[in-house]
């Protein structure tokens, strides 16, 4: 906790203040506080259903994720009530875990909107070992798990935003493609800030993260060095975090 407080003093690219979010009247994020300083890469751990993806949707401004209290700042600008595309224009780019397929809308159509630089797209395609034929394919329609990850990362990097959010870039990807994706993400993170959601931390073999947070029941339970937290989770599971959260809450009540 003390460490988080210290980071508040730095210039943050993302700052989430006391954020509570509801979906269909059900509370899914509770008083979340999170700061990501400029140039840092943070990791978000948490068991299934703890609210990790919801946090991303709230950061992006998806209307179903209703902010009942709290604020979100991006580079010091209050974005709490901005439409999704305005947030994207400011530099937030998300690689989604389960993006929808859209018939008749081609990956190439979206990329052309994200950047006029065809060279850059070709270069990214090469780096990702992603066949150019995919540009003519309907977005996400019939894409395999690995193809979706590549397509998402490609779109995110085509835009050149200053802040990248990756929702489980390492799940459902085979070893060979993981290595490719890991390498591309590592390169892309140079000089950028990021928030990466991961279950098992596999992506951390490729990416140096500065800080990790654990989300439990819609609340940040703890924040510490990624290696330390990952070690605890792998050894003891999330039960340890839950206990930690409970004891902290009890302390607060006292």
């Amino acid at each position, binding site marked *: 906790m003390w460490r988080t407080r210290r980071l508040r003093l730095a210039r943050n690219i993302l700052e989430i203040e006391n954020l509570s979010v509801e979906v269909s009247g059900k509370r899914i994020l509770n008083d979340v506080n999170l700061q990501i300083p400029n140039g840092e890469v943070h990791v978000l751990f948490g068991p299934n259903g703890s609210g990790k993806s919801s946090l991303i949707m709230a950061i992006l401004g998806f*209307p179903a994720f209703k902010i009942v209290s709290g604020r979100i700042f991006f580079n010091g600008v209050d974005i709490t009530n901005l439409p*999704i595309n305005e947030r*994207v224009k400011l530099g937030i780019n998300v690689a*989604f875990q389960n993006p929808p397929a859209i*018939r*008749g*809308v081609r990956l190439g159509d*979206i990329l052309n909107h994200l950047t006029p630089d065809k060279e850059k797209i070709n270069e990214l395609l090469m780096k990702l070992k992603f066949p150019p034929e995919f540009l003519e394919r309907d977005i996400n329609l019939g894409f395999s798990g690995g193809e979706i990850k590549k397509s998402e990362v490609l779109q995110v990097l085509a835009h050149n935003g200053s802040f990248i959010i990756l929702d489980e870039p390492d799940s459902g990807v085979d070893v060979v493609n993981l290595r490719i994706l890991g390498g591309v993400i590592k390169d892309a993170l140079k000089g950028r800030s990021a928030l990466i959601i991961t279950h098992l931390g596999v992506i951390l073999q490729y990416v140096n993260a500065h800080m990790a947070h654990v989300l439990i029941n819609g609340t940040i339970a703890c924040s510490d060095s990624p290696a330390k937290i990952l070690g605890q989770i792998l050894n003891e599971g999330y039960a340890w975090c839950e206990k930690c959260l409970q004891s902290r809450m009890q302390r607060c009540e006292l």
Partner: protein
Amino acid sequence: MSTIKDAALRAIKKPAELGPDLDISQYSRNPKNWEPCLLSSLPKDVLERALEVGVTSNEENRAATFFQIDHSVIFRAVQDLFENKVEIMSAKEALEKYDWLRDYWWKIVRVDADKYTALAELAWDQGYFIRILEDQHVTMPLQACLFISTDNLNQNVHNIIVAEPGSEAQIITGCTIHPGVQRGLHVGITEFYIKENAKLTFTMIHNWAQNFDSRPRSGAIIEDNATFISNYMSLKPVKSVQMYPVAYCKGVNSRARFNTIVYGSGNSYIDIGSKIVLQNEGSRGEIISRAIATDKAQICARGFLQGEHGGTRAHLECRGLLLSDEAMIYAVPELVSKSSGTELSHEAAIGKISEEQVQYLMARGFSKSEAESLIVRGFMDVGIFGLPKDLEMKIQKMLDITAERIL
């Protein structure tokens, strides 16, 4: 002939099975007089309208052209490069020239099917005859335009298309009206004969007006190893259009495919379907339809597959997008199996623009309205037509303009 005429006389009051029943006496039979002329000398507004339905006055880009205004054929020609490969002429001319054409006349579409087929016999106003000669692969599309320049006119055309064995061609038919025309009735009979090993892609584009009625009646016979692809697109409002073209896959390994893109707006009543009957070993059929309804438009999207022989397979895919609470889409997929060796399937889905899709595109920087128009445009993706690239791009441009207008 008298038996055909008799049958027509008996059917002249017979309402169609589907669609609003029209009083055919309310339409005029007095057309404007048009003299034959070069396309380039036609009035600008006629040419602009023709271009909107894919018919260009730049004949260099077409293997052959047929142009009819009201009841007059004003132009028909085969480009030099394609002489002795294709024939194009008015149906009347063709019937005089070829005795055998009688064997193709009213042989797929029944003259006594309803009052509109009867009308096309009893008050017949030309139409075209197109023949692709044996083994000729025609690299450029052929085009035909059926144009109405007189308000409240009734135009009844009868077209015959013969793809001789081993031939391959693309035909674009545009049916449209002068900007000054509000009302009228177009009846179009089209009979397709796709012989062994031939392949024909037929693309029909309709542009009518809010008080205009249209009753096309089409049928195709597809012989051994032949392929028939029929594309239909209608983007402008219409008072009513009802059609249910049928393809008989008569030959071994015959193939039929219907692709339909319909955008219904205003008070349009649109009842459009496609039927495929599988009659021989290896026959395949596919029906793909996309319907978008907005304002108060009513769209019936029908599809009918019938398997009559083993070793056959067909699929029907019908998708609807409803953009207004006052509009309606009625999807009617039907499968009839008369042989245990036939595999028929269908999927039908109607919905509104998906929020999830809109938000995903917004997360890629598109505004809400940009995202919606991209989705609608994608829904009407002309890629399903399988057209040559240049033609596909032209038609896609028309669709894009419509998609922009919608939102």
